[in-house]
């Protein structure tokens, strides 16, 4: 794939190394469909994708849907490479509302009041970034933004600051949006 270049105010260029898109039960890496499922539900799609990618990471099954989505996208790009200097900058529109809604259901009724810590921990959108950091041992710069829509300029500007200041050599950047059965991930690796 031809790398894409951006011009910034200081006339330096950033390079997009690889990208992954996940939506409609498909995983596409650099314009190539690497996995496709007939599953209609995200949970089934995610399970099948996990098996197909031979991930061998049992913690995956404990993750909430947003984390599974972000994790799958990141896996295709990070693989087994050394990312000890790769920052993660993600954003979405719905924050962690998919899990928030599920957690709220567990506390709506006084009679059936059993708040779950395993669900509660995922009621923050940045947890998906944490999951990726843990799997790939990335003790690196992290950020999670909530925006009305995917703003590639903003994310790239923010990422460029991290790269130019020497805080990271690459940035895993992207939009990881999920609410119930409506989801889209567009994640890419940036470098100077």
């Amino acid at each position, binding site marked *: 794939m031809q790398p894409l270049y951006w011009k910034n105010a200081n006339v330096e260029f950033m390079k997009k190394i690889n990208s992954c898109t996940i939506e409609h039960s498909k995983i596409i890496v650099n314009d190539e469909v690497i996995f496709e499922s007939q599953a209609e539900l995200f949970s089934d799609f995610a399970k099948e994708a996990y098996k197909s990618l031979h991930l061998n990471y049992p913690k995956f099954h404990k993750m909430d849907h947003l984390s599974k989505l972000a994790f799958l996208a990141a896996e295709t790009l990070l693989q087994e490479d050394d990312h000890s200097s790769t920052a993660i900058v993600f954003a979405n529109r719905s924050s962690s509302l998919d899990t928030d809604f599920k957690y709220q259901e567990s506390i709506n009724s006084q009679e059936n009041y059993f708040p779950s810590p395993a669900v509660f921990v995922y009621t923050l959108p940045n947890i998906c970034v944490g999951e990726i950091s843990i799997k790939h*041992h990335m003790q690196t710069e*992290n950020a999670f933004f909530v925006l009305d829509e995917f703003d590639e300029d903003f994310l790239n500007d923010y990422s460029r600051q991290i790269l130019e200041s020497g805080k990271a050599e690459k940035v895993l950047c992207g939009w990881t949006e999920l609410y119930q059965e409506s989801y889209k991930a567009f994640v890419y690796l940036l470098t100077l």
Partner: protein
Amino acid sequence: MKQDVYITDYNCVTPLGFDVSSNWDALLQGKSGVAKYKIIDSLDAFYASAIDHEKLEEEFNRNFERQDFTRLEKMFLLSLKPLIEKHTISEDTAFILSTTKGNISLLKNQTTLPEGVYLSRLAQKIADFFGFTTKPIVVSNACVSGVMAIAVAKNMIQAGRYKDAFVVAGDELSEFVISGFNSFQAIGSEPCQPYDKNRNGINIGEAAAAAYITSHPSENEKFRFKILGDSAVNDANHISGPSRTGDGLYASIKNAMTEAHVSPEQIDFISAHGTATLYNDEMEAIAFNRMELQHVPLNSMKAFYGHSLGASGLLESIISMESALHHTLLPSKNFKEMGVSHPLNIITENQTAEINYILKTASGFGGCNAAIVLEKC
């Protein structure tokens, strides 16, 4: 050469007052917003830090005519208003909002998502009210959001994307959050005691705080604090427990101080996170020692304000700057006996001090950490 970026104004809305000077006066007298409340039917009464509901309504009605705002939105509006009145909004002005849960209490007993729970909608509503023209940026990075919001403003101004920024941070007490922390056994049975031997958990708090950040401070500013360095590094260890060796916090502090060109000997004061859980406070002690910061006067503000989540990083940075302006270090309230395995210079009473360089840190769920270095100019 990156331009310098400064904090030149701020305000806060907390249980201790609706402006900075009332907060400072209360803090000097050792007052705390923490008290016992019975908020949820199925839970016993517990200690939390809450803004008086009636006083908030009164203050809001004194300043605004419109009523179609949630309680949290009212807190945001009140904290921003004095800043908006003093600094002009232009098309190069950023609007950055830090929160963990926003209007989450709107979710109760709903079958679909109300518009107001979307954090971008919340931010847009506040932005529209004051006439911001740029798209709002919401930082939602657990309890480090408030510190990160300052860093985001600095970095995006240095990127040339904006000339200045209004940053607002806030979270309110909610059954959602209280029940969640309770399921984690994280809520303390007493007013919290950061770093203390007998600490046993957090007090949840609520607050809103706002700051004005610019690369072009005017001559009329009463003060300016340069944002010298920032960093937010993940532990990569566990999604709810901090690294036992303080890796992420250590790296965040190191990077921020390296960027700031400041050594441990130069730091005059540390405003730490100190939530009073067993693991967080211990982790911080390890990280500060790894950075050779164990001699620097340090406090946690959580016993004054509770843990105000998305507001905490900004609120506590503001109080740190107030400390510098008043040449006064505040104690780490409720600390009596050392309860972490590595030494720290915990402030135990009000004391006069010259404070030029401030280190503010925070840590949160997801293994995140953040640090910023501020210089009084």
